[in-house]
């Protein structure tokens, strides 16, 4: 890698350092425990923080929803079922900064009135457990010493992608098949064991801590109007440099590619297999953020040596297996999209069949039961639209 590029990335990294920054744990816990619930919620709401798992739901609003629901029993769940292909940030956060995750959960507990919290961690990350359990033991003791009635436990997942969807995660925690629930009711009203529950991504929880420490204004200095703050990105694929980088939101994709690309980038898959594929000709007009293309962190770069047919094929194979299978548009739709591009490739179906498949993908977007089936249309339509000739020939 050329020296210039490395320097540039270092400059960018210096600009933002929230997630992996060292913090003094006890003073931070004290500060948060001394805040009033509505003070916490207002601060988070004011910061404009949106969920970092991918869906981008305003975090303050979620906490308020659970806080406003009357119940003696409430839960906070940290979603560490990091399953989106190309995403590997939560693993790093839990490995390096687990204490900050626990503090974020504590802030939420204080805000909504929960006494119990869970970290739902994907089975593949079980190797993190010994360290995590040790740190959690320490943290639970700190809370106990401070007299705050909140206890965090760890639950290990069993390997279904759909369990990253919050209601499937809750079903899985209840010992059932990991399948999404019908919404409403939303988890903030009836979640785990039918009690009000907040489910937040690992990264989101750490940002809440930083917002509460530094105040909303500091956070708002970063990012754009629609995409406040920063985000941890997972750079993979044909990149000059791969890895985990915290960057401001609202960055133009061209700038990103200039920074991380290998000079031959023809497309970037923003947001993993359920995200959008942006072709090189749209790099300039695309902003990474909620006003443009949002991402849960995954940034996969593809250079000119890659076949976008194979990329799409790979994603669809993933979806047809990882669909929970209960709803028709997702279960059968994913299979048809895959069979469909295969048939077009082999010449068994005319190229115009792709138009039928795009219509099908549009139907899946509006009629599938959960985010999984709804978002299959993102990669499908963006790849077929932009790389049609690669699919056909």
């Amino acid at each position: 890698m050329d020296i210039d590029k490395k320097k540039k990335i270092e400059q960018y990294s210096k600009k933002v350092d929230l997630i992996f920054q060292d913090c003094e744990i006890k003073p931070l816990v004290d500060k948060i425990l001394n805040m009033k619930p509505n003070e916490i919620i207002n601060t988070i709401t004011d910061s404009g923080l949106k969920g970092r798992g991918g869906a981008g739901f305003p975090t303050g609003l979620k906490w308020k929803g659970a806080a406003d629901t009357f119940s003696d029993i409430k839960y906070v769940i940290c979603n560490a079922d990091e399953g989106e292909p190309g995403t590997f940030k939560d693993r790093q956060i839990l490995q390096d900064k687990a204490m900050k995750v626990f503090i974020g959960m504590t802030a939420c507990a204080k805000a909504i009135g929960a006494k119990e919290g869970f970290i739902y961690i994907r089975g593949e990350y079980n190797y993190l457990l010994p360290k995590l359990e040790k740190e959690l033991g320490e943290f639970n003791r700190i809370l106990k010493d401070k007299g705050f009635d909140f206890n965090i436990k760890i639950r290990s997942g069993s390997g279904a992608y759909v369990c990253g969807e919050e209601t499937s995660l809750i079903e899985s925690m209840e010992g059932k098949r990991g399948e999404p629930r019908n919404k409403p009711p939303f988890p903030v009203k009836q979640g785990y064991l039918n009690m009000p529950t907040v489910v937040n991504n690992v990264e989101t929880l750490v940002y809440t801590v930083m917002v509460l420490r530094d105040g909303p204004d500091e956070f708002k200095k970063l990012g754009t109007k629609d995409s406040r703050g920063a985000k941890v990105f997972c750079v993979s694929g044909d990149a000059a440099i791969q890895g985990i980088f915290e960057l401001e939101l609202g960055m133009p994709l061209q700038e990103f590619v200039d920074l991380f690309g290998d000079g031959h980038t023809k497309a970037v898959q923003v947001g993993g297999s359920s995200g959008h594929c942006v072709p090189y000709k749209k790099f300039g007009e695309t902003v990474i953020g909620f006003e443009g293309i949002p991402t849960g962190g995954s940034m996969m770069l593809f250079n000119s040596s890659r076949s976008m047919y194979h990329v799409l094929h790979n994603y669809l194979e993933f979806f047809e297996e990882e669909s929970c299978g209960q709803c028709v548009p997702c279960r059968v739709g994913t299979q048809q999209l895959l069979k469909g591009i295969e048939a077009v490739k082999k010449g068994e179906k005319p190229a115009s069949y792709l138009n039928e498949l795009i219509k099908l993908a549009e139907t899946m977007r509006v009629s599938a039961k959960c985010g999984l089936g709804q978002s299959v249309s993102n990669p499908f339509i963006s790849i077929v639209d932009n790389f049609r000739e690669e699919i056909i020939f």
Partner: protein
Amino acid sequence: MANMVNLKINDIPLKVSEDTTLLEAAKMLNIKVPTLCQHPDLLLAGNCRICVVEVKGSRTLQASCCTPVRDGMDVFTNTQMVRRSRRHTLSLLLSEHNNDCVRCYKNGNCELQALAMEYGIEGETFIDISGDTAIDMSSPSIMKDDSKCIKCQRCVRTCQELQQVSALAVAHKGNSIKLTTFMEKPLHFVVCTNCGQCVNRCPTGALIEKSYISEVWNALDDPAKHVVVQTAPAVRVALGETLGYDPGERVTGKMVTALRRLGFDSVFDTNFTADLTIMEEGTELLMRLKSALADKNPAALPQFTSCSPGWIKYIEHEFPDILDYLSTCKSPQQMFGAIAKTYYAQKSGIDPKDIIVVSVMPCTAKKFEANRPEMNSSGYQDVDYVITTRELGRMIREAGIDFKELEAGECDSLLGKHTGAAVIFGATGGVMEAALRTAYEIITGREVPFDNLNITPVRGMEGVREATIKIEGCVPDWSFLEGAELKVAIAHGLSNARKVTKQVAEGKSPYHFIEIMACPGGCIGGGGQPIPTSLDIRQLRMDAIYNEDGDLPLRKSHENPEITRIYSDFLGKPLSHKSHELLHTHYTKRKW
């Protein structure tokens, strides 16, 4: 009291309670929204997505079956997006479905087929991805063909929620998802009770009864065979539904005529052996009470009824340690077979080896019961073939019989007479009521103290019901029961059965006699009854059963003259040696 909300559906305003779903609200306006995974007896699933509607301001379509109304909602059920989505969903289902419709058992009574027609799905929209799957024919009651399964999970919800048996479950995910059994074993080798409630709720031909129609035709066509038929009480109040009548129509007389036209040599009635069951089972209960109260010996109380073969297999699997509590009486169907091949054979001078006994049952579990190895005390299999109400309807149609125009007929004598007490066996609580009408009279010499013999406390659709009957003025033989309070309970549907059976297993049951039927509503809601089923339909059939009882001249089993005759000519007395040999049975402890 729920709050009322205002909304608009297709620009028509309406005001409904806030716990209403969009589907229910649309129905109130007579707007039809198609459904597949939704069933009135089951909890909501929201997984077929055929019932989607457009809600103004919402990014996605909403499944109307599981979306509650909200104030100010603006709902559209027939937009371009909705139609396209439904058509896509149907086309997707058809792409994974075995579309061999004209050769399907459910041809003409398939919800998927009906919707495909309604939405004009023609030709192949998507690539055929239906795979070859083996049909599970292991069970004598139920056939499972996964190639026709649309994964709506109605069967799973039926088995898990309604019956709490959980023989069926969802396995795997995505393109490999399967509605199947534990370890994907064949149905015959799991805890399936053969109740057939899944069959009643399957929208397609994936779950159907194992049909014995061709075996029955073969028997009827064989001049060397003397083929007799018995019909269960619940058949006569539901058969009409397969032949163009509304639910609740009684077609008893026409059914008898139709059976004769089909070629049965004698047309009898399971009601006859229902009356016989009361004599045997009622006496058995009194003997257990005597043993416990007068002789102070241990007795297996409460006594469970044993008429429902789904219930029998259930208790054999789930509570194998308390089988002694079951009445040892065979079910009326099996008693009939044993009597037909002994008493009837003797009286009519026919060699029992030439007699074929066919039963028409509202039930799929009866097919299993007829095949139980112990059911052959006459030296011959008690019952040869069991067909469901649905199969009889099919035979009548196939024979070209104009059912509605038939004259009413009467059953043949010897095994055909019955009382109202036997008829009500078809509804939950009926066996209890019939037993009480007779037992009370044996004990006190007087009729049960209820208006017109209608023991209303044991009737109804409540899942578990209980009643207490105070016994006063006993005849000398039963004076030890003077002042006793007979406590009885009734449960229908296996989830309710579990509640009362668990009490017995824990030694906490307060009852003396418990009636259990595996199916909701009793036999009128049986797994062999016409499809569809719902609480309303079952209620209409139940009303018809009680009307049939009320219209009969004899309403107490012990007053049936043919019952008196069989005891004087053949059996001797209830619980006699001969009765035990032919009419009683034993049970099997089953493993999981």
